């Protein structure tokens, strides 16, 4: 029993971290802590999702926020226009993002390295331009929810509480998904692609399909996160839905924690958000917060380029077995 338990230490550690963040506002009964935990968990979910593509498969996507925005738009539309509930909307957002990823994957996963990264930036901009001109989604001014929508959930206060629980659930799911991919045969194929795509192909990995599935898996949760984020936000517009900066932040969080590991993106995202939140409101730094977080990031990347988990693995070879 205990041997089996320790086999999955990394999963327990990761789930534990997510649970601690998720339980913190529930135990303290504090709305502000809930809001803070919400942004931290959404960052964790986004970073862990992108990690499947970036960390395991080695494909850098600079436009991953496109799935968050697109899923958000589809989810928002189903709530605002079709009158669906949040659960269905979340599902719709996830499916829409997955479909988009599948179609895009067929087209652009043939590209490698810098070309792929450039294409992903282009796609984010293209989808944004499309939404900007798409009348059913409200065009450039987007859509706004009626405050009464929240009544069905017992008022805005309860709706936001519910959204938080959903976010905890989604983050736990993405953690399990990430761990499953990392330890499965499928994930091994992805790791092989990351190291040498041609060699992986020779070894029997069906690279086009493996890459495409990795892309789809990395898009579903961001689509769902988008749907619940914009439900909570109450309004959606192209500028809010497709911020390039969030894409870059997702990569930064993964690199801080350690790419290609399960626990890394979780710690990276939580650490990054905690730092940003602290700087944003601290009386001493709040006017300089972006400059300071830039310098801190630079220092971290300079001195621990593999990220926290990568550094631990390198420094203490004994922990490698259970810290993945």
């Amino acid at each position, binding site marked *: 029993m205990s041997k089996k338990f320790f086999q999955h230490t990394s999963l327990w550690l990761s789930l534990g971290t997510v649970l601690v963040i998720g339980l913190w506002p529930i135990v303290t009964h*504090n*709305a*502000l802590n*809930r*809001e*803070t935990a*919400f*942004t931290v968990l959404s960052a964790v979910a986004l970073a862990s999702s992108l990690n499947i593509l970036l960390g395991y498969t080695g494909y850098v996507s600079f436009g991953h926020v496109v799935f968050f925005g697109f899923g958000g738009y589809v989810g928002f539309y189903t709530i605002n226009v079709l009158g669906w509930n949040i659960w269905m909307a979340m599902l719709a957002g996830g499916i829409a993002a997955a479909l988009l990823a599948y179609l895009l994957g067929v087209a652009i996963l043939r590209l490698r390295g810098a070309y792929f990264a450039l294409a992903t930036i282009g796609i984010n901009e293209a989808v944004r331009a499309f939404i900007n001109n798409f009348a059913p989604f*409200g*065009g*450039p*001014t*987007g859509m*706004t*929810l*009626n*405050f*009464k929508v*929240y009544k069905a959930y017992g*008022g*805005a*206060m309860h709706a*936001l509480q519910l959204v938080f629980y959903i976010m905890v659930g989604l983050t736990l799911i993405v953690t399990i998904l990430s761990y499953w991919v990392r330890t499965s045969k499928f994930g091994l194929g992805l790791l092989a692609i990351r190291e040498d795509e041609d060699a992986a192909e020779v070894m029997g990995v069906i690279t086009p399909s493996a890459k495409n599935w990795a892309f789809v898996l990395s898009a579903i949760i961001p689509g769902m996160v988008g749907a619940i984020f914009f439900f*909570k*936000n*109450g*309004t959606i*517009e192209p*500028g*809010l839905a497709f*911020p*390039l*900066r*969030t894409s*870059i*932040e997702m*990569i*930064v969080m993964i*690199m801080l924690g350690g790419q290609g590991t399960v626990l890394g993106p979780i710690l990276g995202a939580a650490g990054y958000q905690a730092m940003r*939140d602290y700087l*944003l*409101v601290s009386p001493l730094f*709040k*006017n300089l*917060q*972006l*400059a300071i977080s*830039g310098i801190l*990031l*630079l220092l971290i*990347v*300079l001195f621990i*380029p*593999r990220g926290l988990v990568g550094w631990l693995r390198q420094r203490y070879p004994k922990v490698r077995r259970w810290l993945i």
Partner: protein
Amino acid sequence: MRRKLYILIGILLVAGMVLAACGKATPTSAPAPKASESSQNNVPAKTSAPSAKEVTVTIGFTQSKTGKFNEESTRQSDGLDLWIKQVNDQGGIKLSDGTVVKFKAVSYDDESSGDKVQQLYTRLITKDKADFLISPYSSGLTSSAAIISEQYGKIMLATGAASDSIFKKGYQRVYQLYTPASHYLTGAVDLLQSLDPNVKKVAFIYENSKFSTAVVKAAKEYAEKKGYDVVMFEGYDKGTTDFGSFINKIQDSGAEAVMGGGHFQDGSTLARQIYEKKLPIKYLALLVAPPDPSFADLGDAALGVVGPSQWEATANYSPESAKAAGLTWFGPTSADFVKAYKAAYNEDPDYHSAGGYVAGLVLQKAIMDAGSVDPDKVKAALDKMDILTFFGHIKFNTADAHGLQIGHEMIYIQWQKKDGKLVKEVVWPKEGATAAPLYPLKH
């Protein structure tokens, strides 16, 4: 080698983030107000009661200290800060029960992005115990903040947010200070009607963007209600530089008045080409471009062109015009505001600055009317509010679109010639006018 690669990627990422965060929108052309000399100090609530009970009211808001709204948002909070300073320097507001109310502001950077607005407003309410809230800059961020303010029953004064849609979503405690987008051009229709009741044929030509489309759709509806015959209603693509075919079409339609436009570049090009082709129209009103000082570079083509603005320093709202309109006057005059603003920040205020200041002023009036800082009483006072300030008329919808601004009218400026030089004059509404309108257009 690999380490170097990581370092390179790291540096690029940081640089990318800094760039993304610093990317500012082109500063909106702020109308340059002219300060007229006036030493009259007309700020109300001059009180001092040393023995009275003193309360400090916390005003919470987020400001876009970084990101694309930085410029506008900073001016907005500068305006608000000026109001806070003035009220506190004068000893605060004295209520009827003798309580003295002073103000303090708490603000955070929302980075012009929506992802932290709700978190920060929750913080302002639960941790900083803000009593009243001011909206962030822009309609998008304001709608995100409204969900939080509404659920805690906090009053939020929305300035810098012109969207109509927020106020049609069932909020009860959000109050708009700007004229909503749907009224940007309706005043231009009123002005035309007051100038020449015989004109009946109007053409609308506008940029195919959501803002301009929303504005002209509302204006068209309004014009038709007023009995106008809309002979042309056509959009042009962003970046259009040749309006030749549109101008021919306007001529064929027999329109006597033209309204529309979009942004600065297309609006000024349209005005120039209408002038060059000597289009025989009597009236031309365009969005956004005319209030910009550089519109005067068009020379004679700018003469007589009308354009809407939220506020102009030259707008002649005064205690006298309030009396004439049967409204209560409140707060400083435009000249006093401009003077104080210039002294504090060493630059001319634009309408964002005025919007920030007036948010404070309206709150002050509501607290004075309510005689209390109790949110329910202040809400009742806001619902009843019907005043004239240097910013214009302030009155809120209290029915189907609660909180929507229905008093404030856009100011319409017109380029006129004085001593051979082009000057911007306020021509509408009448109580704020600085000159008689030039009519008809002389081409």
